[in-house]
């Protein structure tokens, strides 16, 4: 699955996460979270796992977390990747 252009999904509201994906030659993930110290690694792991599930091996991914559950992170990531495939 290739990222064709920049796309974003999710919001900065509480319990949500805003995920931006952009085309890239490598896989690069940055996580910014209100609970970064406690959960930063966990969020990163969740994103990595779901990128693998989506078949995305190269992308620049920005994650701005506002305390989202794993199922929300997965949903927003899937939506962002989906949008990055769309034309126009």
């Amino acid at each position, binding site marked *: 699955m290739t990222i064709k*252009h*920049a*796309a*974003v999904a*999710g*919001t*900065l*509201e*509480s319990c949500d996460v*805003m995920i*931006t994906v*952009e085309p890239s030659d490598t896989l690069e993930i940055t996580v*910014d979270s209100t609970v970064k110290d406690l959960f930063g690694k966990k969020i990163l792991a969740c994103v990595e796992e779901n990128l693998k599930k989506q078949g995305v091996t190269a992308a*620049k991914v*920005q994650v*701005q977390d*506002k305390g989202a559950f794993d199922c929300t992170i997965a949903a927003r990531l899937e939506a962002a990747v989906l949008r990055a495939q769309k034309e126009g």
Partner: protein
Amino acid sequence: MIHTEKIFRPDRNPRLQELLTRFDLTLPENTDDNVGLYDGDQLVGCGFLKGNMFQGIAIDPAYQGEGLSATLISALIQLAVQRGMTYYQIITKPSMATMFMNLGFRRVADASPYAVFLENGAGSVAAYAKSLQEFAQGAPEPRACLVMNCNPFTLGHRYLVEKAAAENPWVFLLVVEEDRSEFPFADRIRLVREGVRDLPNVQVLSGGDYVISSRTFPAYFTRQESLSAAQGAMDAAVFAAVVAPALGVARRYVGTEPFSASTALYNEALTERLPPRGIEVVVVERTSANGEIISASKVRQCLREGDWDQVKKLVPESTWAYLRSGAAEHVIENMKHKE
């Protein structure tokens, strides 16, 4: 129910005016897009997008504190990404800075009491500073710096650069990148490079995302006098926080514009705020030709009027060649039409 929606005809919206006025803001001009926050059909918040900058953000106090700032900003970010941008800037009142930082924005420079400059998304001020540092490696000290739009590069600019080059072993010339000037950035910076090619100790650099021009700044303040002071304060804040440390600069050169109160206020802000941060400000009187101050705005005015004789007196050979060439033709035409 709260929802977001584009505000159509923002210039004809009394409720929007009311909202902005309450926050001491004016309607941002020439914006690319906007987001309105509505409760049912009542406008309770707004935000505008100009390039990658979020402007004119206001939320009715009755609705603050309900996570609606997150809703508004998220909607703005969505708009920006749809336009292919993943990096955003906000210039806002100091009172709003904390709210944005809670949404993940990082502070770039603080020009209190006027404004604070924040950023979010890909890229960062740290990366920019690092790239500047690499340019500056090995340059002799002390180093001076000029920040100019050069729209286009004139003899006035040349004079200023010459002076700085004569008085300092190394000079950095930062050209403001943002492309809201009549002449496109690519042409502007090329003209600058050609115009100072003979000066071996002058290095021309692009201002990048952090050296913003006064054109991106306006519309935040209603009183004209404070606008220039605010712009100057922001310039000083960014310069002192980001540019000067990265380039190792100890001096900033600025030119005067005797009949311009705004330039005076702008320079005053620099003179006030930079020395306490260890940066000397050198104010240079503008040169004149036939008693007329040489400035880029004068050149543009003459171009509009078709007064090529006068233009020739104000610009160096390199700029003249460009203005007479096909490359500049459509730019000059546009200027004539846009009055």
